[in-house]
């Protein structure tokens, strides 16, 4: 009797011990094993958008740093970086290569709205995470329809709404002129701005002109906008054209309240060529630290970033905000992988990506990375800042969830 009881207890304990071990078992999807995790990424290293290629390089450099420090949970990151030349047809090919040939665990930080639109359906069908997409288009935070796609940065529409709110607060009778790039980036910003103005959009916006990336200058557009008599200017341009616009506005003697989209808000890359004096009083939003802004010179996060650049990306430009962007996005991914632990299935990676709540060193104070099962917008907080001739000065409240 006693023996039977003992045997049963021992069997029970053995079963318990075995199931415990089963719970701690490692689970892998293609792209992950005991030794390494394969991370695929697609960026434009050639073609008209090759300026963004440095984001991919910065990401690679950061993974090198992580590997040198022991990897993530003992596994090294194998980084597979592919070039799509900003051509959606090529992006489709590269995405298929990553999934079917290289068998990467995730497709990380693909860049550009058309490129991502082209691969969204495929990646969701194949149940491969399309993680931390490098564009501010609003449509990437849609977990119900596309549960495998997640955005990263504050959306263009959200930013446009912030400027609209600010105009309504400070200059409710203003006449607004808008210059925007004739593509999804420009139109997305404009939509957010017009939505934010609501009914007053039609009466307040007196001039809207576009430009193409192939245009040599936007001088003609600036002359047209000044002639409209507007006293507020919403500048939706990429860095080169932003610098031209700021310079031309000063040259023709036009001094409106100038909202500059934050893609082009770098002190070193845009405001300095345009002329620091010409850039006085420009307003923009920010969520990430500008490496050329003197106010961060003694900030620990900035100094760590500079040390990282010097050691792992010595040929990288310390004045290029894209290198900060890549660094920060890579940190986000590493956090997700750390949280996934030994359960490296794609499903768990998405689950962890949807349960983030961290701060990252190069994000502005007050800006965090927060996601949830219904919240596929990791970074939403941003704050307004005004340029005082030397540096950006934050003001007002922090917008966003």
């Amino acid at each position: 009797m006693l023996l039977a009881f003992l045997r049963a207890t021992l069997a029970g304990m053995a079963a318990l011990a075995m199931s415990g071990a089963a719970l701690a078992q490692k689970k892998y999807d293609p792209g992950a094993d005991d030794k390494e995790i394969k991370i695929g990424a697609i960026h434009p290293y050639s073609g008209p958008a090759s300026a963004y290629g440095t984001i991919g390089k910065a990401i690679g450099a950061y993974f090198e740093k992580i590997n040198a420090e022991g990897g993530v949970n003992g596994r090294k990151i194998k980084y597979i970086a592919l070039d799509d030349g900003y051509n959606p047809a090529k992006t489709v090919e590269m995405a298929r290569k990553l999934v079917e040939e290289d068998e990467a665990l995730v497709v990380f930080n693909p860049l550009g709205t058309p490129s991502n639109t082209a691969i969204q359906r495929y990646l969701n069908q194949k149940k491969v995470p399309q993680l931390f997409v490098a564009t501010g288009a609003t449509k990437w935070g849609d977990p119900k329809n596309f549960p495998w796609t997640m955005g990263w940065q504050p959306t263009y529409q959200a930013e446009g709404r912030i400027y609209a709110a600010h105009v309504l607060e400070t200059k409710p009778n203003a006449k607004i002129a808008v210059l925007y790039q004739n593509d999804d980036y420009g139109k997305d910003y404009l939509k957010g701005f017009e939505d934010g103005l609501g009914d007053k959009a039609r009466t307040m916006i007196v001039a809207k002109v576009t430009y193409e990336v192939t245009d040599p200058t936007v001088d003609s557009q600036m002359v047209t906008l000044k002639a409209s008599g507007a006293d507020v200017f919403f500048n939706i341009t990429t860095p080169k054209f932003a610098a031209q616009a700021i310079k031309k506005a000063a040259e023709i003697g036009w001094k409106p309240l100038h909202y500059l989209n934050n893609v082009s808000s770098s002190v070193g890359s845009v405001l300095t060529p345009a002329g620091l004096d010409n850039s006085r009083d420009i307003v923009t939003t920010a969520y990430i630290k500008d490496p050329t802004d003197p106010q961060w010179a003694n900030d620990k996060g900035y100094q760590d970033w500079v040390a990282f650049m010097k050691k792992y990306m010595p040929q990288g430009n310390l004045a290029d905000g894209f290198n900060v962007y890549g660094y920060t996005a890579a940190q986000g991914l590493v956090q997700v992988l750390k949280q996934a632990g030994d359960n490296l299935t794609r499903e768990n990676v998405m689950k962890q990506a949807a349960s983030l709540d961290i701060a990252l060193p190069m994000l502005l104070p007050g800006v965090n990375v927060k996601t949830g099962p219904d919240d596929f917008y990791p970074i939403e907080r941003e704050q307004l800042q005004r340029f005082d001739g030397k540096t950006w000065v934050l003001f007002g409240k922090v917008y966003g969830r």
Partner: protein
Amino acid sequence: MDGFLHQVFAGLANGCIYGSVALALVMIFQATHHLNFAQGEMATFSTFVAWALIQQGWPYWGAFCATVAVSFLAGLVIQRVILRPVERAPVLTNVNVFIGLLLIFNALSGWLFDHTVKSFPSPFAQESFLKSRFFSAHEMGSFLVMMAVLLALYAFFRFTSLGLAMRAAAQNPDSARLVGIRVSWMLAVGWGLAAAIGAVAGMMVAPVVFLDPNMMAGILLYGFASALLGGVDNPFGAVIGGLIVGVLENLLGAYVIGTELKLTVALVLIVGTLTLMPAGLFGKRLVTRV
């Protein structure tokens, strides 16, 4: 009226940019009867070289002259080394080589000097006597520089024996050889001069549009249109073509069709003009005798 004048003068300023690039294209065409697709990227690369020299502390005009000289030599070397093997090959094979050069120069610019936007200094001080209400000192200055290059080119081809030899070598290489002209070297000199003119164009353009590897991508296409509109064998035509294209583009965008179809309409007009005058406004009409 004020706005209209502003648009016209902004268009003329843009037109100077197109015209200077068109001059380099015309130069190469007169020397080799090829349209060099890599002209824009070579000009950008030269401008980056000048930028690098200025960053090192060189004075502006020193860097300017050094860059023009280096560009001339580079153009010469490119013709001798890279283009000579395909000299006798079909036209489209040459076009492929130009495309290859375009890709190489563009990638080199990006790799060596990265993609951040850089400002390039202008030799014409902001407040100099050249400035006026409708255009800046630099715009006036670059217009004068372009006219100087144009006159120098015209004088070179019309009045010097080297210029005559180059025109002969391009028009009829076999007869030119019979007369004792070293055709191959004429082609090389033509390339060198075109590269030098391109460098000047780049350095005049960069202060306005800012320097980055893709600076010339849009401009080159307008440069082609200008050169052809004016007649691809006529330097004066190139400049006038450039000015017309610049003003037309601005006025169309501002008053007629809006900026969204500006490019399309400008190109339609250019093609339309070419259909009516197939050799361009000032080009020589080639009549073939049967």
